[in-house]
């Protein structure tokens, strides 16, 4: 197995140390460690983070391989500093059986760039009618623990209640895409003054908030865990804060784009800025940042949603919803949370690694960068800054809202389960990373 020596990296407490990685595990931490035949990763001046864990990724395989595949999506993940991605269930066929989730997980394992944890569909075919084979997926080799109909809301209250109860049986969690469907028919952007001016059908905040309010009460009633995907409004933050204060077992995520971008971008009618839930107002962005800083929102998740060029080269209402985000997530979190003084790097590790791993029941991330932990390490040049350009994108799709924007930080090296996937700021070749 690989023997690595990471030298002079800055740890989460600000101290500097060398880390020795052997057989997939961090075996030694200290200063002036001898190379001893190890491959040395000079990390002088780099910030060490635990490998990042994304709770919300669309890898598109099987079914939409023109947008992304497990290989290209996990390469994008590695380039962005991630070592685990949770692959959402809206593939074709849908990830609603053990066979499909095992296939997706094994493709990830074979390629080696990141651990792929498939998310199981809550309902068969995401149709919102009957529960999928949750037990079979949980018990499969993919060991699914997160269940979501993401893209669609489980809007039927009784069905959601049953899902919350049933998923509890397997120590899983339901990740709800909170969107009241009737209130958002044809919705194109945040509902408000700007949508009324632009003539784009509104997606009102109440369509998200009313579902979250109902769902936290249901979770309390049945004593189950609940995770809220991509919280986007100040009102949602208030409800989650209230629920946590009542002791309800709810966690919430925010996307990088909702931490940095506002609905004003829709005025360009450039479909790169079309996403679901939509970009919101400045006051929502500020409330989301504050909530992430104080722990009301637990994690940042990318909602990486690749689409082919033609799906965005059209009029706004005809365009697909979604943005790619794996490659830009850490930079955007640094820009919106670290540069603003709201989070330190230990906080970044919490919201992008430790907590998402805990929610997804991913083992080995509870003691970041500690001796004895599996070696999942991301090394960032936090002092770098530059325009985010096409060269930074490594998936199949280029629908990033951040292209042309100056962002801080650069992922220089990534170690996944003891093996490097990124060195000197560049992805290692596919053959070198593949485990098969």
């Amino acid at each position, binding site marked *: 197995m690989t023997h690595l020596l990471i030298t002079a990296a800055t740890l989460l407490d600000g101290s500097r140390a060398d880390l020795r990685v052997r057989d997939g595990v961090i075996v030694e931490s200290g200063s002036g460690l001898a190379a001893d035949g190890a491959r040395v990763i000079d990390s002088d001046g780099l910030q060490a983070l635990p490998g990042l864990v994304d709770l919300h990724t669309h890898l598109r395989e099987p079914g939409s391989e023109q947008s992304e595949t497990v290989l290209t999506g996990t390469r994008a993940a590695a380039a962005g500093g991630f070592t685990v991605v949770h692959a959402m269930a809206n593939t074709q066929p849908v990830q609603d059986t053990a066979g499909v989730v095992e296939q997706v997980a094994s493709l990830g394992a074979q390629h080696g760039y990141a651990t792929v944890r498939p998310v199981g569909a809550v309902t068969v075919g995401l149709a919102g009618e009957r529960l999928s084979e949750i037990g079979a997926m949980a018990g499969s080799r993919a060991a699914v623990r997160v269940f979501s109909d993401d893209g669609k809301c489980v809007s039927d209250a009784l069905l959601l209640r049953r899902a919350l109860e049933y998923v509890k049986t397997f120590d899983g969690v339901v990740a709800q895409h909170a969107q009241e469907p009737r209130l958002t028919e044809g919705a194109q952007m945040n509902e408000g003054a700007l949508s009324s001016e632009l003539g784009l059908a509104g997606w009102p905040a109440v369509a998200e908030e009313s579902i979250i309010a109902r769902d936290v009460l249901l979770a309390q009633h049945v004593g189950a865990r609940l995770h809220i995907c991509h919280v986007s409004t100040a009102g949602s933050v208030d409800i989650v804060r209230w629920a946590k204060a009542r002791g309800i077992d709810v966690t919430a995520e925010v996307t990088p784009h909702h931490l940095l971008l506002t609905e004003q971008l829709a005025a360009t009618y450039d479909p790169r800025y079309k996403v679901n839930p939509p970009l919101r107002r400045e006051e929502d962005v500020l409330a989301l940042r504050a909530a992430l800083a104080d722990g009301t929102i637990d994690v940042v998740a990318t909602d990486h949603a690749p689409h082919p060029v*033609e799906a965005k080269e059209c009029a706004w209402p005809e365009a697909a919803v979604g943005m790619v985000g794996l490659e830009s997530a850490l930079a955007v979190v640094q820009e919106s949370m670290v540069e603003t003084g709201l989070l330190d790097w230990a906080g970044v590790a919490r919201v992008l690694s430790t907590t998402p791993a805990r929610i997804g029941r991913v083992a080995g991330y509870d003691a970041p960068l500690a001796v004895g932990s599996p070696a999942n390490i991301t090394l960032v040049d936090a002092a770098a800054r530059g325009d985010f350009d096409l060269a930074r994108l490594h998936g199949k799709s280029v629908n990033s809202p951040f292209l042309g924007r100056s962002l801080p930080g650069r992922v220089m090296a990534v170690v996944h389960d003891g093996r490097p996937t990124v060195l000197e700021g560049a992805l290692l070749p596919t053959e070198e990373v593949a485990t098969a």
Partner: protein
Amino acid sequence: MRHLLSTRDLDRTTAVRILDIAEDMADVAQRAVPKLPTLRGKTVANLFFEDSTRTRLSFEAAAKRLSAEVITFSAKGSSVSKGESLKDTAQTIAAMGMDAVVLRHSASGAAATLAGSGWIDAAVVNAGDGTHEHPTQGLLDAYSIRKRLHGAASRGRDLDGVRVTIVGDIVHSRVARSNVWLLTTLGAEVSLVAPATLLPGAIDSWPVTASHDLDAAIAAKPDALMMLRVQAERMTSGFFPNEREYAREWGLSAERFARLDADTMVLHPGPMNRGLEISSAAADSARSVVLDQVTNGVSIRMAVLYLVLSGNDGTDA
């Protein structure tokens, strides 16, 4: 003027200038041969992805009176119904050497997307994009109001202090939007009347007053009353219960029309639903400018095509 995409970003000087050029164009129509050689050698493509007879004919007539070549493309029965995208259709038309594209599209922002995309070099004139804007309609309405108020002395004037009330489905109306921005830019006081379901939720951010009571609006003696067309699909999706109730509350019935101030002009962008939002008594009266609007529409579109195609303007709008 490179493109005309909206009235939102027209300033008062530019707007008055367009109206004044339209006055000149209207004079041409009075001649024995109502035709100018101005745009000889230019080609205008009417790209209509959505059904429209009046706007399309109006743009065709305008282009022809300026001696431009016109080709018209309607989505029905075309390659669009076979799934061709806006980009491909526009590039196909552009490859045939078009100088201007007049675009009608069901998607809000389609004209802005086409103008900003780099797909084509031609000038883009928005002939209605979804529920966003219909700028030439706003311009022809402003022109019609100014003409009715000031007649031959219209040139150079704005609409300072003119009180305009717009009634009906504001939230889905591109005509209402183009009028609100343009009329207020020209100095008019605009008020909107509609049930709350048909007013934008964020109406406070618009430079208008809004209410639900048409009778009160009539009693306030506006200078102009603009009735908007009611789309049948608004009823089926529950914005109001049925035609009878709409007509009773927000229709310009003969009885309401009788109470209207003698000097108040009545506008309607057409096509009219007689008996629903407007009665025949109102539509056919001397105070109605509905047919003037149609005539003026040609003059306005001549002015706009002239400005985007003559290339001697230098200002962006």
